[in-house]
């Protein structure tokens, strides 16, 4: 048993987190910044944080993840990191020549109270920021929120630093995709374009973190939202923010700054959430939904009808981020599965309420916890076993110990590929989710079936 110390006796814990279901702000900020074209993320703090964030993103995407660090020493943590940051800015522009440096803070620089804005201004005055180049920044203390908060803060910084309003509408819609895979970002763009709508999608990590092997490495790949597009977000018709925790702040900032109206939607995961997304697009843009999209919806519905017997009343345990879990739980409920144990490490009161609303009519008790951890989830599972576990890679230990079919979903996924190429958003993404769920559950049926009832046709 790999998690041999996890028992069924649940004691309340106030101080100790065991096997977290979240991580820290800067990694989200770094991920968001990688979705800007020609931008180098920079971690203002000790170099360990940056090494950890780069390593984890690299393991998840299996792609180069470049970012610099201020490499604080004991001295900088006493006197502040101004000298380190100015030197870093100079070195980065001289050596790596990005157009933008996106600075995020760490626990250390936040605790010290470094004012990154003021430091960047000083760097500018000192002539360390070449003409036409930019240093933007987001404050990302990890003792607040989670990786999702960091993503949100950096996305908001893109608005604060770049968006302008010329008064001449650009005829486009801003789409903020949330903390999702590069594959999901391209799929969202595809759907929006299929509706005849021109999107400015930001951040956009497609073609950055799922780039091709060409034999020629480019530190700044083709993808990413361009500075010009970010500038133009103030001229857009409106903004649709997907995932309230990751995207709403940036959308509201655009509304406050330039009166660009916004709508905050759930991530389009599963049938109903995608329905709402498409319908919202249709209404705000005044377009009609093309047959292509309606057909995809029908295809998803078809898979659900065809395979319903395998979903019906199967119990599911989930760990992940609120923005993902809410539409995912809604999806599972809509196909008659029973999501019974749900944890997220990311704080935010709305989560428990939404989950309770989605599950209150289920014929069984449902455990949900915000600020929970995977240790608690595992204890719940031991008390009330499930037919399926959906979590990031760390779920594999529970899955092995308790022999639970396991579908990997969320961040990070360190032991499988596919997530950065095949989306789980939209109707087609819904089919992929079902395929993953069915694969693991039906493999298990095949494994456990007595010989006489081992089915060829299922």
């Amino acid at each position, binding site marked *: 048993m790999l998690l041999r110390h996890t028992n069924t006796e649940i004691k309340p814990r106030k101080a100790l987190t065991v096997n977290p279901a979240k991580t*820290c702000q800067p990694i989200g900020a770094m991920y968001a910044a990688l979705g800007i074209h020609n931008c180098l993320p920079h971690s203002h703090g000790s170099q360990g944080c940056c090494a950890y964030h780069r390593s984890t993103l690299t393991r998840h995407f299996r792609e180069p993840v470049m970012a610099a660090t201020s490499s604080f*020493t004991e001295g900088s943590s006493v006197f502040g990191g101004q000298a380190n940051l100015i030197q870093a800015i*100079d070195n980065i522009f001289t050596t790596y020549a990005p157009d933008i440096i996106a600075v995020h803070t760490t626990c250390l620089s936040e605790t010290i109270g470094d004012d990154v804005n003021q430091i960047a201004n000083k760097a500018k005055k000192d002539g360390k920021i070449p003409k036409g180049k930019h240093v933007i920044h987001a404050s990302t203390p990890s*003792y607040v929120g989670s990786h999702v908060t960091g993503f949100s803060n950096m996305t908001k910084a893109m608005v604060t630093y770049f968006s302008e309003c010329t008064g001449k509408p650009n005829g486009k819609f801003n789409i903020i995709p949330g903390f999702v895979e590069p594959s999901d970002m391209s799929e969202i763009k595809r759907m929006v374009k299929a509706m005849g709508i021109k999107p400015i999608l930001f951040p956009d990590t497609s073609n950055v973190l799922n780039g091709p092997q060409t034999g020629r490495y480019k530190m700044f790949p083709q993808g990413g939202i361009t500075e010009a597009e970010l500038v133009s977000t103030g001229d857009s018709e409106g903004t649709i923010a997907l995932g309230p925790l990751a995207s709403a702040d940036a959308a509201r900032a655009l509304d406050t700054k330039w009166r660009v109206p916004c709508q905050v939607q759930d991530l389009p995961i599963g049938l109903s959430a995608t329905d709402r997304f498409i319908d919202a697009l249709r209404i705000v843009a005044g377009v009609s939904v093309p047959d292509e999209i309606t057909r995809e919806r029908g295809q998803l519905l078809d898979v659900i009808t065809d395979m319903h017997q395998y979903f019906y009343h199967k119990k599911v345990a989930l760990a992940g981020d609120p923005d993902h879990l809410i539409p995912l739980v809604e999806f599972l409920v809509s196909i008659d599965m029973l999501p019974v144990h749900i944890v997220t490490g990311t704080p935010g009161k709305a989560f428990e309420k939404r989950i309770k609303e989605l599950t209150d009519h289920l014929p069984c008790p449902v455990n949900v916890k915000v600020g929970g951890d995977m240790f608690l989830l595992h204890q719940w599972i031991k008390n009330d076993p499930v037919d399926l576990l959906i979590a990031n890679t760390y779920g594999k230990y529970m899955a092995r110990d308790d022999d639970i079919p396991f579908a990997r979903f969320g961040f990070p996924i360190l032991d499988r590929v596919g997530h950065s190429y095949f989306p789980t958003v939209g109707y087609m993404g819904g089919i992929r989710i079902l395929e993953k769920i069915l694969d693991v559950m039906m493999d298990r049926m095949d494994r456990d079936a007595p010989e006489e009832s081992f089915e060829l046709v299922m």
Partner: protein
Amino acid sequence: MSTAIKEIKKTRPVKPLDPEKIKQELLAKYPPKVARKRSKQILVNKKDEDGKIPSIGANVRTVPGIITQRGCSYAGCKGVILGPTRDIVNITHGPIGCGFYSWLTRRNQTRPASDQDDNFMTYCFSTDMQDEDIVFGGEKKLKSAIQEAYDAFKPKAISIFSTCPVGLIGDDVHAVAREMKEKLGINIFGFSCEGYRGVSQSAGHHIANNGIFTHVVGKDDTIKDADYKINLLGEYNIGGDGFEIDRILDACGISVVSTFSGNSTYDQFANSHTADLNTVMCHRSINYVADMMELKYGIPWIKINFIGAKSTAKSLRKIAAYFDEPALIKKVEMVIEREMPEVEAVSEDVKKRCEGKVAMLFVGGSRAHHYQELFREIGMKTVSAGYEFAHRDDYEGRAVIPDIKIDADSRNIEELDIEKDPEKYRPRKTPEEMASLANKGVPFKKYDGMMPEMAEGSLIIDDVSQYETELLLKIYKPDIYCAGIKEKYAIQKSGIPMKQLHSYDSGGPYAGFKGAINFYKEIDRMVNSNVWRFLEAPWQSHPELSAKYVWE
């Protein structure tokens, strides 16, 4: 052949490169101050008339913004040294990230004796500090966390790791540890391994080892009834390296009292002072523990290396020579004789496809040296190498230790004042025996470092940057590059295979005899992979349509 492949793979310079010029090229783009600093850390391996190697800048601060491979002191302390110990509950005191990222990501394998034995390695424990803990202090939360960990898991020991903000807000983790130790009656100790201490992971290794030495070593005096008792220091059982080493030592009849710290337990550390010889694998991360054990308990130490079949054989012979008993010497020779034929068969075969190919290694504090041996065994040469966090002695040999300047960053890593233990000090050999063994070639406390073993004219680079890496690939066009996860994909996207020598890309073991075989085969697979032939699509290598296609 397609142009990209030609460009990338086949244009390895025919004329020997001038390493001094390459050095200048590496420095050319940097701002002057940075160039000056880096110039001390980049040097051409060349002996002067007196046969002396040049001295390198190492263990110095990384230039901010340069994109380094390095991590932090916490990573070195919690991740590297204590990470592989299975039965201590390791609580990270800090916000959630540091603990999360060091959760199971180092591939340290562990093998508890039974299903009942403690194994917490699959768990991550954190105080997940919040805003209010930063403002009002986190000691209360830490105490409660220790209590909760004790209540839920009843471990034999708990340790606490401080992350950056903890030092800054002044939480006294050591006082908390003492208080809770008293209260709970189990061993509890803390580490001040905040990420800003020192200049790399290396500081964290030191802090961790000092802590284990102070709080655990020497607590259990039971002398194991076994022959030839040694400790294996600086072996972390990545990918099962330690298991292979144990297999070989066991076959030789050599008994391992404790390993620091692959596949280790608290009890092994507590008992480690009863061994009769310390063998040091990774000099960087642990040589000071060997020194301290010698001073305090009288255990002599030698440097060994189980990476490479020949080095493995050599290391076994060194251990046998120390114990100086014909039975052991004979057994060791038997084992070597038994293991080598298979190793040689594979290396001969692999050599046919790898001979003359070129490797570069930029990793760790000993691996960039040790792994050159394995490449040599299949006829590959290392043209450039360097460490991520080693010190001058790991490059130039221990003879330089007295000359190493102590700077502000090293000064804040505690050096323990060690004295002979009045009760437990027990010289393993008489001074005469030691002298005679040394005369016979047992190399006590000796390590010559990486540079003397490398070819003249090779380029040595300490704390290599991403920028330098990219230039090196363009200039040398190596057949394989070895580093860590952060470097991996930029290198592979340049069309050059990249082998991770921290995590082994989920492979291994690479230590010992079986490990050598694994490594030869792995390198053969990588440098001769088909994939590099497909970098260009047909329409990219022949873009022009010369004439209209004629259907048949």
